[in-house]
């Protein structure tokens, strides 16, 4: 871990002040060492701000049809133009950011969380439990993400919640696999033996002693998962099997009209795709920079 606290002994009084100062120092240091990562973080923050305050940013309702202005090119009244139903594209993209972020973060946090517990437990218990769990995860891993998601969608149907379930399930084994390999190394460390000697229960050892020590690779993976989940949601919605009209979702905006009107109204196809690409790009850049910053082996490279 990067420890950038000033070299003086903290007292109880300046504990708060110091931690905020060292946080600020850490952030400044991160920006200086990882310019690309900072760009990524900025992109993520912009999209998050758009998603959180969509009602205030969007000039129009994302679902309001205005048949007087169908397939209008970008103008001051409609920053990104309008689609074939006369809906304002900019407003739809801003509201689409909310859908993308809800799906991205829910999938990453639930899938990652489940994977974290399974991965650490698998490493901690070892033996038969580990073997059985790994074989099970092998089976799920053998399904490409989008194929698994399609199969789940086929059962539960489409819609935001079902899309989240469909994307979360294939993320679990991918997370568990990575976490397990880091946890295997930690299991052999003395403080785990010490905790066991103290008579602590399995749950306490796993949650309090092992999980905190695999958080670095876990967090890096989580940022990657958010990007992957946003991409997967866009693909499913594009296929017509994900988020359904009239909800604003980027993948959905590319379906149907985008191809049909590609030559006469290219803005319908260009802007939603750019939104997807830039958001996922932001998460990938940030995740990469985070990995470089957290991995001491890579820091000097």
């Amino acid at each position: 871990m990067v420890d950038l606290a000033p070299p003086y002994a903290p007292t109880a009084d300046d504990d708060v002040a110091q931690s905020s100062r060292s946080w600020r120092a850490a952030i400044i240091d991160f920006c200086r060492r990882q310019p690309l990562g900072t760009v990524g973080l900025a992109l993520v923050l912009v999209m998050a701000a758009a998603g959180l305050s969509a009602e205030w940013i969007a000039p129009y309702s994302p679902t309001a049809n205005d048949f007087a202005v169908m397939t209008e090119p970008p103008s001051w009244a409609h920053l990104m133009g309008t689609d074939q139903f006369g809906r304002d594209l900019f407003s739809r993209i801003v509201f689409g950011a909310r859908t993308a972020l809800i799906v991205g973060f829910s999938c990453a946090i639930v899938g990652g969380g489940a994977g974290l517990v399974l991965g650490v437990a698998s490493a901690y218990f070892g033996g038969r439990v580990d073997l059985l769990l790994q074989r099970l995860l092998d089976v799920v891993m053998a399904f490409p993400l989008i194929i698994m998601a399609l199969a789940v969608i086929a059962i539960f149907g489409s819609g935001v919640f079902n899309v989240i379930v469909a994307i979360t399930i294939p993320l679990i084994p991918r997370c568990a696999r990575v976490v397990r390999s880091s946890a295997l190394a930690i299991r052999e460390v003395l403080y785990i033996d010490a905790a066991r000697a103290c008579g602590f229960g399995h749950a306490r050892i796993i949650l309090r002693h092992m999980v905190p020590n695999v958080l670095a690779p876990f967090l890096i993976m989580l940022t990657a998962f958010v990007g992957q989940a946003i991409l997967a949601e866009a693909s499913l919605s594009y296929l017509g099997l994900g988020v359904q009209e009239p909800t604003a979702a980027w993948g959905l905006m590319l379906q149907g009209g985008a191809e049909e009107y590609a030559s006469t109204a290219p803005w319908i196809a260009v802007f939603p795709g750019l939104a997807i690409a830039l958001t996922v790009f932001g998460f990938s850049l940030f995740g990469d920079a985070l990995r470089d910053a957290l991995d001491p082996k890579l820091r000097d490279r």
Partner: protein
Amino acid sequence: MYRYIVNRVLLVVPTLVGAAALVFVLMRLIPGDICMVRLGSGGASVDPRALAVCHAELGLDRPLVLQFLDFAWGFFRLDFGISMWSGKPVAEEIAARLPISLEIAVMATVVAILIAIPLGTISALWQNSWIDHVVRTVAIAGIATPSFWLGIVSILVVLDVSHALFGAAWMPPIDYVPFWQDPLRNLSMVILPALTVGYRYSAVTMRMTRSAMLEVLREDYIRTARAKGLAEQLIINRHALKNALLPVVTLIGIEFAFLIGGLVVTEQVFNLNGVGRLFVLAVQNQDYTLTQALVMLTVAIFVLVNLAVDLLYAWLDPRIRFG
């Protein structure tokens, strides 16, 4: 060595059986009934006798265990039954669409390798230079860009450019012609999807090449090679790249299996009648037999490619077989 191979090959069996069971259960969990869809259009009521006949015809009235055993045994013999939707043998449906998907997959792989390995190597050699930053950005952009959007945009560009150059908009042909019948027509159809899929593929491979090269370039034997005055080009080609390519080959193998997933979306964009498109249709039509056969095919390819990569690895790196 033999022990390792036998163990590794045996490991394939539980994975495949597990996957088959999972697919089978998933397909049976689907609400809705293929026979209802077939017989009644919309909300019309269906004659229960006709429904029972339809169930018997498709074997849906037999015990689940028997249905599963039938399914597994059929898969083992490459007999996937009859498509519940079209009534034609599933194997026939897939075989008709496999060539185009396979061609795109192979071409995308070639594109990926041609782009990724040189660029990844250059990026590692001039680490943290502007070239490195450009290559890394291009690579991350490749992972971030949805391939279906790239497809739409590339069609758009082709339309506009052809319109500007020839005065008439040109679209890639839609019906598949084998390469040996009309190479030009075949390539003009396949090249765009191959490039859009290949870009993402190359991005992943590029990043792996770069990090593997960085690792290898720090090894002692590279320093030794430099110390004995070997030409830099020789060091890179013969000593560094050769060792760095091991994880890259693994990745290429695994990603090839995942290409099928990518094709599902790309074929939709380019309106190609391939296996990916068939998959989406099968899910939409609730065609159990077709869907389960396609999913199993994907899984089997993935598992077998993984097996091949692991065995190749063991052959190349003795530390694995004796470890």
